[in-house]
């Protein structure tokens, strides 16, 4: 053992920290999550497929994925914008804005959901004006999208911000001396560099949005086949003491999220490896 690790470098503590990491991870995440699979496996294959392929489940998966995807997209765009504005520009209230970005983490999601509903409902602060234009937000998929955008924003901002802070301004200067406009510089030079961070932020926001329940149920209207999200269906199954069915759906979503995260981490790693190559 000692020999094996000593080759990794002279720094002490690899065995201990790695061991601790693995044990802690196993106890807190892996073992509990494996129970999920165990429970789902009490269903026969037909039952499992039946549960997943039920029209309402499929519809809710569609709603969940679409709204989460659009929310993550919007977050990717505006998250970058916010991170950009926060790192590049000076303006009054910058610190407050910077801090408020973390709000969705701190506020219980249900409170967030209710607050958003009160703003975007037809008689809400903003909803009333939107209603005049015939736009309904609350109790439609748009409402779900609003809630998911709310909870996902910090992920993108907080992953992009440090990368922007470390960004070497000389690249932009180089582009300028070569005659590139600001637009070209941004799209062709800066954006490709930010892309890995944006993708990570996007993935985290997307994964989180898929699982979000508390804030969505208040604003979605929960109409089956229309505005019902996957976590709500899981709750419905639980209400009916159908643990196996609930875990079946949860398992599918979890595996999907895991694969996506893994792909993104791998992508990231590939890019970094590229960079490190001599």
């Amino acid at each position, binding site marked *: 053992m000692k020999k094996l690790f000593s080759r990794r470098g*002279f*720094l002490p503590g690899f065995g201990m*920290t790695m061991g601790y990491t693995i044990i802690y991870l196993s106890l807190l995440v892996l073992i509990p999550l494996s*129970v999920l699979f165990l429970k789902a496996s009490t269903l026969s294959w037909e039952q499992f497929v039946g549960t997943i392929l039920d029209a309402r489940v499929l519809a809710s998966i569609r709603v969940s994925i679409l709204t989460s995807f659009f929310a993550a997209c919007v977050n990717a765009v505006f998250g970058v914008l916010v991170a950009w504005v926060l790192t590049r520009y000076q303006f009054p209230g910058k*610190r407050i804005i910077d801090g408020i970005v973390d709000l969705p*983490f701190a506020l219980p999601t249900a409170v967030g959901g209710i607050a958003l509903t009160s703003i975007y409902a037809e008689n809400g602060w903003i909803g009333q004006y939107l209603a005049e234009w015939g736009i309904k937000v609350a109790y439609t998929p748009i409402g779900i999208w609003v809630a998911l955008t709310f909870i996902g924003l910090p992920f993108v901002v907080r992953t992009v911000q440090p990368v922007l802070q470390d960004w070497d301004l000389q690249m932009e200067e180089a582009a300028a001396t070569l005659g590139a406009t600001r637009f070209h510089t941004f799209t062709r030079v800066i954006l490709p560099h930010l892309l890995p961070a944006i993708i990570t932020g996007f993935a985290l926001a997307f994964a989180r949005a898929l699982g979000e329940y508390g804030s969505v149920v208040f604003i979605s209207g929960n109409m089956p086949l229309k505005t019902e999200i996957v976590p709500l269906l899981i709750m419905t199954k639980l209400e009916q003491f159908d643990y196996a069915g609930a875990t079946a759906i949860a398992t599918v979503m979890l595996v999907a999220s895991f694969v*996506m995260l893994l792909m993104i981490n791998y992508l990231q790693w590939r890019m970094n490896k590229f960079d490190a190559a001599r």
Partner: protein
Amino acid sequence: MKHVTEPAYVRWSLIAVAFLFLGLFLILPLIAVFTEAFKQGADVFFAAISDPETLSAVKLTLLVAAISVPLNVTFGVAAAWAIAKFSFRGKNVLLTLIDLPFAVSPVIAGLIFVLLFGSEGIAAPLLATLDLKIIFAVPGIVLATTFVTFPFVARELIPVMEAQGKDEEEAAVSLGASGWKTFWRVTLPNVKWGILYGVILCNARAMGEFGAVSVVSGHIRGMTNTLPLHVEILYNEYQFAAAFSVATLLAVLALVTLVVKSVIEWKTERQFEVEEEYHFDVSGERAG
């Protein structure tokens, strides 16, 4: 620096768009929470937040955060050390596994602990013989909270430690420092802001977590109700103003962490500025 920035009108429009977006998605909800809280006047507000059950919920919330945040900090630091300072196979999978709790629906996060420790759960016989209670008690709440806040510190620290490199550690060891001393006296001071930032995010989420905790808490008033659960119960009792009043406590908490973070950043920035100033001094000195 004209070439690396946009014309003022672009700059200000971007700022305006950012403000608009944040206003619609973050600031307005925050204002809404406060408005709702004070809808029935300050009396109701103060009565709600000084209610004994609120106070006990505050206590429990702080307790849970006080346990799970240090747990995750310890883990985050250990994981960051192993991942950032060494190279080994399967780093990606490990990183993804650390990210995994972000992808798990909070409801499911609670459920898995019920499936594990509930009376029909896998560990039930063991718990029965030991006469241990995990779910519907504080340990369950701590577990669920720790689960959902699991990645924050590690996620924050790993890039910081990676950027830091191993130079200073090598120097310390070559000067005769032991592993522990190197860690305490060299590594830790260098990543302290990273840790603090991770702690702030982790703490915010730990205090605000609702879904997972709701499943494992049992909602026993004055005993296993955290602040977010208390908000829910008040809400379910048609005490909307009181519910939002308690919610403002959490929002204020977020704002406090904001202040803490700002102070920290301001301090680091100042340190940085000092460095810059000295940089000038040095060049002056040398030329002189």
